[in-house]
């Protein structure tokens, strides 16, 4: 086992354990910070999979953007009275059953019955992945890129319109 594999197992263990911590903790704020830990180690997994640009993007957008947004949403949707924010569970049986069955079926397929030999290629990855992604985003993937821009604009305006305070109309 070389050192890359060791680091991969390390990051994978942190990812899965902190995700399980989100499942088992009752404190909502602890869940948010465990999600941050999970996102950090997923970024490490991306870097080990030769996708360092995606890893940096993950850190910038998820850890720097979405998680801050989650903490703000948490702050705006709870009554702050000095006690810890705890949540309750429901549908426990069906949730755990569905998750376990899903995990068992898929891991059985991946480990024992799927055949990934066809995917093996002798071609090498592009030397400079960031340059490759940049050129491709501006040429081959231009239309998805523009649609993503429009989607972000629509989401921005939509979120502002939904969450604005409006006066109830008097008839």
């Amino acid at each position, binding site marked *: 086992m070389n050192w890359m594999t060791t680091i991969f197992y390390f990051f*994978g263990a942190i990812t899965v354990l902190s*995700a399980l911590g989100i499942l088992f903790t009752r404190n909502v704020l602890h869940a948010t910070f465990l999600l941050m830990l999970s996102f950090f180690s*997923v970024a490490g997994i991306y870097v080990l999979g030769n996708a360092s640009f*995606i890893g940096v993007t993950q850190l910038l957008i998820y850890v720097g953007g979405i998680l801050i947004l989650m903490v703000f949403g948490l702050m705006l949707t709870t009554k702050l009275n000095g006690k810890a924010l705890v*949540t309750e569970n429901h549908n*426990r049986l069906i949730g755990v059953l569905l998750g376990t069955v899903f995990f068992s079926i898929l891991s059985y397929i991946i480990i024992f019955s799927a055949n990934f030999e066809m*995917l093996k290629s002798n071609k090498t990855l592009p030397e400079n992945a960031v340059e490759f992604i940049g050129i*491709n*985003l501006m040429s081959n993937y231009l239309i998805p890129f523009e649609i993503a821009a429009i989607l972000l604009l629509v989401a921005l305006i939509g979120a502002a319109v939904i969450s604005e305070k409006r006066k109830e109309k008097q008839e």
Partner: protein
Amino acid sequence: MITLQHFLIIGISLFSIGLTTVIIKKNAILVLLGIELMLNGANVNLIGFSTNDPQIQGQIFSLFVIVVAAAEAVVALAIVVRVYQYFNTSNVDEPKELKG
């Protein structure tokens, strides 16, 4: 040697943990956290498949997945804040006006 199976196992672990979180948690913010976990599991799969691909299409697709996840989180949080202002609760099972 990191094989494709390693990536896929981590991806489905994240996906099933996220699915369970979405189903069993009552707080709407935690449901959103579960959705983010599921999207991350899908992204890990895409990165794993693109390690053998000279065109690295998986990496480019996972960029778009991250963009859509950001847009989804913003709109969903706006809806949660609105629901909290109207019903004074952030639990997903308490607003049941539509239940006949």
